[in-house]
């Protein structure tokens, strides 16, 4: 199918975009990479009155850093992140995950801000950002606010973002040595959305788990951080197999969200397998 009619604006600065987004009488949507919005419009699941195309706003396309964090503009594409030496050096987890997000033609258009604003529970980046304790920066015509990634995602395709706000950047804390990480996802086919997946992160300069984060995706309505497992892991050696096994057992106490193809029990099994392999990768 084709998209229903709409009006289109291509602002060259952030302020104009925010002004357009602030109209209360019509249904306005920002257009980033269009890799999720265009299908939704072609299916007519989404029928906005006005599209505000963000692709000409250069201030949203920057990757900056200081000694404490890296700030990725919302209009930075997956393919831009893939090419960034700064990201490769400071947050290697991002580089490792990108090849698993869709296919190159989609990564050449899709943006980090679009993925965050969409909040698909099966998407990699929302959970990845929770595993790195990232902060999401939002703006409307009145000003800026920051939300912890953990609090930003509130449900299936639901976030804390108001309709007149844009995601402007994502701030990721960094240390001298990058975080160690494990990542694993189960898919039917390379590049597909995951059936389940897991991220484990921990301080890069220690042999024991320290400030660890365990986040599962595609098994719940939003990124599922399992603090019980993190607390259990902290202080234990990274390569202790019995610790890993006990950590995985903790998953038994959790309920998961089934979908069209996999019921809740299947999801639990996939969650355990994903976590096991993510923990295994951490030591490898």
């Amino acid at each position, binding site marked *: 199918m084709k998209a229903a009619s709409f009006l289109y604006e291509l602002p060259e600065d952030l302020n104009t975009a925010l002004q357009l987004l602030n109209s209360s009488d019509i249904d306005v949507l920002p257009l980033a990479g269009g890799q999720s919005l265009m*299908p939704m419009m072609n299916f007519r699941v989404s029928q906005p009155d006005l599209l505000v195309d963000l692709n000409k706003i250069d201030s949203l396309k920057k990757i900056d850093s200081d000694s404490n964090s890296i700030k990725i503009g919302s209009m930075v594409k997956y393919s831009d992140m893939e090419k960034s030496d700064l990201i490769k050096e400071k947050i290697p987890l991002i580089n490792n995950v990108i*090849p698993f997000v869709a*296919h190159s033609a989609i990564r050449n258009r899709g943006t980090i801000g679009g993925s965050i604003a969409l909040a698909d529970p099966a998407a990699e980046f929302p959970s990845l950002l929770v595993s790195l304790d990232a902060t999401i920066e939002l703006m409307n015509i009145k000003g800026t606010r920051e939300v912890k990634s953990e609090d930003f995602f509130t449900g299936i395709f639901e976030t804390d973002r108001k309709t007149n706000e844009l995601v402007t950047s994502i701030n990721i804390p960094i240390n001298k040595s990058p975080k160690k990480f494990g990542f694993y996802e189960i898919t039917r086919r390379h590049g597909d959305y995951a059936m389940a997946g897991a991220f484990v992160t921990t301080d890069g300069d220690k042999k024991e788990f320290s400030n660890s984060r365990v986040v599962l995706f595609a098994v719940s309505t939003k990124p599922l951080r399992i603090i019980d497992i993190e607390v259990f892991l902290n202080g234990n050696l990274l390569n202790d197999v019995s610790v890993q096994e006990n950590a995985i057992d903790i998953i038994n106490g959790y309920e998961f969200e089934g979908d069209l193809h996999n019921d809740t029990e299947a999801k639990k099994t996939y969650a355990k397998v994903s976590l096991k392999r993510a923990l295994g990768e951490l030591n490898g």
Partner: protein
Amino acid sequence: MADTRTITVNVNGEVHTNTINVRKNLIDYLRDDLGFTGSHVGCEHGVCGACTLDINGETVRSCLMLAVQADGTAITTIEGLADNGVAGDLKKSFAEKNALQCGYCTPGMLASAIEYINAGGNADKDKIRRHISGNYCRCTGYQAIVEAIYSVAENGGN
């Protein structure tokens, strides 16, 4: 605010200027307005890869891009692929290895294959499979396509 816009695009080296409806997808503009019917439309939601083509040196899904977003760009469709260089080698190799039957997937498949070779992709069948995982083929079973790309990669990608 308007629901039409005037755009100028360079398609296969020729410049076109048209006033079009903003809701028109790039693939429909290329096929219906300009007559470049070589690129195919399968799913219109980014999944099948039949509409994949090259814009400014990068592959995109032309069903997920509005034609107005292509304003000022240079587009290469299957009609514009050269008979020499990487594109020529791949076309020959696809024919030699029977990497197409109905040919519906071929324009998108070639765009992805060219991208693979141009990015320095090596002769590694797993990597080739992963790279074309976003392009569906309902005929060949992929084996011959992988072989065709492999043989070009093996010869140093030209």
